[in-house]
């Protein structure tokens, strides 16, 4: 997985009170279909109620683009950590399940068991 991360910490430059800290992540997911699936999967979850972080999801070509803003650097970090964990999990799910095929040895063993 290839990530570019741009992190801004600039209270003086914030345009609103809710954006003291911001991260914009561009995550390359190889193709647009995969990016769309993962975007839709991740967008459902809310941030924990204590968190001041907010996420915005977009897909640009084969990149998932996520903007995370937060009042607090700690919650920004936690949100980004969780985002990568879930993104990696969703990607692993797609890759492994797409590769899935029923192993012949299973069927063979089952046939032996039955006879």
């Amino acid at each position, binding site marked *: 997985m290839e990530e570019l991360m741009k992190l801004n910490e600039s209270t003086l430059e914030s345009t609103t009170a809710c954006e003291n800290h911001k991260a914009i992540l561009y995550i390359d997911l190889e193709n647009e279909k995969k990016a769309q699936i993962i975007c839709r999967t991740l967008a459902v979850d809310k941030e924990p109620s204590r968190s001041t972080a907010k996420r915005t999801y977009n897909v640009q070509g084969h990149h998932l683009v996520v903007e995370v803003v937060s009042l607090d650097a700690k919650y920004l970090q936690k949100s980004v950590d969780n985002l990568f964990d*879930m993104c990696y999990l969703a990607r692993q799910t797609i890759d492994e*399940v797409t590769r899935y095929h*029923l192993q012949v040895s299973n069927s063979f063993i089952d046939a032996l068991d039955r006879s």
Partner: protein
Amino acid sequence: MVCILGIESSANKVGVGIIRDGEVLSNPRATYHAPFGQGFRPPETAAHHRQNIVRIVIDALQQANIKDPQNEIDGIAYTKGPGMGAPLQVGATVARTLSQLWSVPLYPVNHCIGHIEMGRLITKAENPVVLYVSGGNTQVISYSNQRYRIFGETLDIAVGNCLDRFARLVELPNDPFPAYNLEQLALEGKKLIALPYTVKGMDLSLSGMLSYVERKGLQMIRAGECTAADLCFSLQETIFAMLVEITERAMAHCGSNEVLVVGGVGSNRRLQTMMSIMAEQRGAKLFATDERFCIDNGAMIAQVGWHMANAKMIIALEECSTTQRFRTDQVDVVWRN
């Protein structure tokens, strides 16, 4: 023919089950065991589940002899709640991904109802009073008018939580689970220690008892007045008697002659014995499952998904989130009369 894949990940067990028309085709799972002397915490538990869950999905498909998942699986069910936030998110993320990948419907399932429906499927109980006892839940439930109604419950901590925490205090291992090890040690107990008996009508309370055994109990062990085995024995006798009482009260209230025990603590032999004595005296029948289905598993979630599929329920993926609190009686049970 309806085939559902279910994903369970609300606590320290992560499981994937596949059910087709009442038959459990596969049900692999993995358990996160916290280090000795500790309970499992959400971040470490979620990390364990992330590391194992995709392999378990593959194992479930293999063991069920599924050749073409996209065409053979008719729906995905996952635990929406209740449970720990971070572990729940792991199961939901995989479920949402699979649902899109295979273009099949997604069913958010209540964990407690998963236990009830699996208990009903395995035991063939018709309309039992249900005692649901686990590390996170303690409820007496009876079905009425499209809801699983909660007649009685714990007012503070769950039975399994109480047993697990005491087991840690007397240094019992976390493998396979603390309450199981407490059950084994209790068999060696010989002396009944008087403990607080806190039934409150249809409800019960356990935090006082836990505090009592944590302080007074450990003092007695250090003073040589009793052994850890005696306290484990006494804790089980007192807590299970409380559970039997509130269950019997619900049975009397509902006029029921069936009682079903579900949840991880439901696999406790002593609890089953005490419950069966009460049922026998009432002319009722006790139903219980073994540890394959008592303990959290993916098949129980798949079974509720199977009911939801047959009831033609449709839930948008955008609504398929998770929630740490999800009351049993919040669910509209459209699949029952």
